[in-house]
């Protein structure tokens, strides 16, 4: 994958001028406690200590982190492993350098009144799914259940869910995709009680895939200077994550300060931080190869239409975290 010439030229121009090393981080989604570790590391000066100047770029519904990486718009991105591996198969050399999240926060939230008790009851129902790279875990799960998603007989009707939980509240869908730390609580906030709902966590269903890892372009890793920069970045970021885990309320406050849209609320962010802390608790930042293998196995087991067709090679490196967490 060759670099875009002009971009390279510009990067070369700007790189020489900065005293601190610049890192551009592309988030997977909008500014929220899901990314608290990075904002904390920035506010608390952990990046400064390493001599880094980090620009955190929020994502959004139509921003594909993989595309930003391909365009050279960022040095490192937060992404889910399924979409990173799918992009890798498309020829984009994305490599996982750290995995701050141990567990998956994905779940399917259903209305109890639809009569759904277990996964076998999905047939014939309408389910809301996120797309844009986030559909892979769902499709893999349905494939392992043997439920068709293409609208054929005995399958489920899939809706491309917007970014909110309205389809469930308005009963346009029987179930919607939610994250344990975000959308689930939006449903609760809207006035539904937990006993009105039936939830299926991907962790419990044994179809959890790795979320929110840090990915860089493989060809850049050949450069020792870039590698050294990433070691510093991962070290400072993990420091930020552990600080956020220990001080969830302060971390939520830092996130709120950084939210430029002014749309986030304190209660929601504090609760989100609490839920996020559960997901990051099991990780010091290093990817556990066993988790990786499990994710790949789930993605390969997609029946007739798997997310990835063959086991990827060189999709992760432990060198950065080995160096950073010494």
């Amino acid at each position, binding site marked *: *994958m060759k670099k875009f010439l002009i971009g390279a030229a510009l990067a070369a121009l700007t790189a020489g001028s900065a005293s601190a090393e610049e890192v551009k981080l592309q988030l997977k989604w909008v500014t929220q406690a899901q990314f608290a570790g990075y904002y904390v590391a920035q506010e608390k000066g952990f990046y400064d200590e390493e001599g880094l100047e980090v620009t955190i770029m929020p994502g959004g519904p139509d921003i594909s982190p993989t595309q930003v990486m391909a365009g050279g718009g960022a040095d490192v991105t937060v992404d889910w492993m399924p979409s990173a591996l799918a992009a890798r198969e498309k020829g984009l050399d994305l490599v996982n350098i750290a995995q701050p999240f141990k567990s998956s926060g994905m779940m399917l939230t259903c209305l109890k009144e639809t009569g759904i008790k277990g996964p076998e009851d999905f047939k014939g129902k309408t389910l809301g799914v996120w797309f844009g790279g986030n559909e892979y875990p769902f499709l893999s799960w349905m494939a392992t259940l043997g439920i068709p998603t293409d609208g054929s007989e005995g399958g489920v009707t899939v809706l491309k869910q917007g970014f909110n939980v309205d389809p469930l509240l308005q009963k346009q869908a029987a179930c919607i995709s939610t994250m344990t730390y975000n959308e689930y609580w939006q449903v609760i906030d809207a006035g539904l009680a937990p006993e009105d709902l039936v939830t299926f966590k991907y962790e419990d269903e044994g179809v959890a895939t790795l979320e929110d890892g840090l990915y860089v372009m493989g060809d850049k890793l050949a450069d020792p200077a870039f590698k050294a920069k990433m070691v510093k970045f991962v070290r400072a970021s993990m420091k930020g994550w552990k600080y956020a885990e220990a001080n969830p309320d302060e971390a939520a406050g830092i996130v709120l300060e950084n939210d430029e849209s002014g749309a986030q609320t304190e209660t929601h962010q504090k609760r989100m931080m609490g839920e996020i802390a559960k997901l990051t608790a099991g990780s010091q930042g290093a990817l556990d190869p066993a988790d990786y293998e499990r994710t790949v196995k789930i993605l390969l087991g997609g029946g007739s239409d798997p997310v990835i067709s063959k086991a990827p090679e060189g999709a992760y490196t432990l060198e950065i975290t080995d160096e950073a967490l010494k």
Partner: protein
Amino acid sequence: MKLLMFALAFWLGASLFNSWLAARFSHRRWAQLFVPALFGVTLLVLWEGVVAGFAISPVILPAPSAIVARFAQSTALLWGDFAQTILKGALAGYLLGCGAAIVTAIVIDRSPFLQRGLMPVGNFVAALPIVGIAPILVMWFGFDWQSKAAVVVLMVFFPVLVNMVAGLKATDHLQRDLMKTYSASYRDTLFKLRLPAAMPFLFNGLKIATTLALIGAIVAEFFGSPTRGMGFRISTAVGQLDMPLVWSEIAVAALAGSGFFGAMALLERLVTFWHPSQRAR
């Protein structure tokens, strides 16, 4: 780099050839088709040359050749999306919205009071960015094409209404006085003088509305849709880094939009052949 050089040379040659053709044969039917076609080919050759010459990543901008190949192999998929978005969403909304606008214009034309009240409010509502309305309409009308048609109705209604109201006023006193001397009724005046005189304005609105309808139907699908449709495909294919498919959909949209606009322009020529702007000079 060779390809880039060739593309630049081709561009230069084609531009000169086009100028010469336009100067000599501008009234020939074949030239009127050939000139824009050559211009389009030139753009594609330049695009191909730039992508190859600068080694642009296909994830950022695929080459036209890759897009054509993807287009050819996924025609069935593209047709399904086209039917869902254009034939159901855009067309239904367009017909409903334009029809309602024309009827509304004629109704409020008789009531100065209503006009004075409705037009400013209408202009205000027309200024609502539909992008923001789309998620709300998905919430109201469901995920299928009905909500997309509703977005289109809102998008096309006001441009057509404003143009039609202006068109109904596009007669001189002299012409209206003449109708009075013929002791023509309101209906006669409307059908024999004012509606024909309004046509250039109406078609101006209808032509603007074609592209609005298309964009409205596609954009609305970004905010929730069944798993088919052009907007759905574009947004999901970006996530899957299938850029050639994205551009194939964009090509379908451009073709459909041009056809739609062309059909309206043709209709306009048939209806308003008497208007000065229809004579190319």
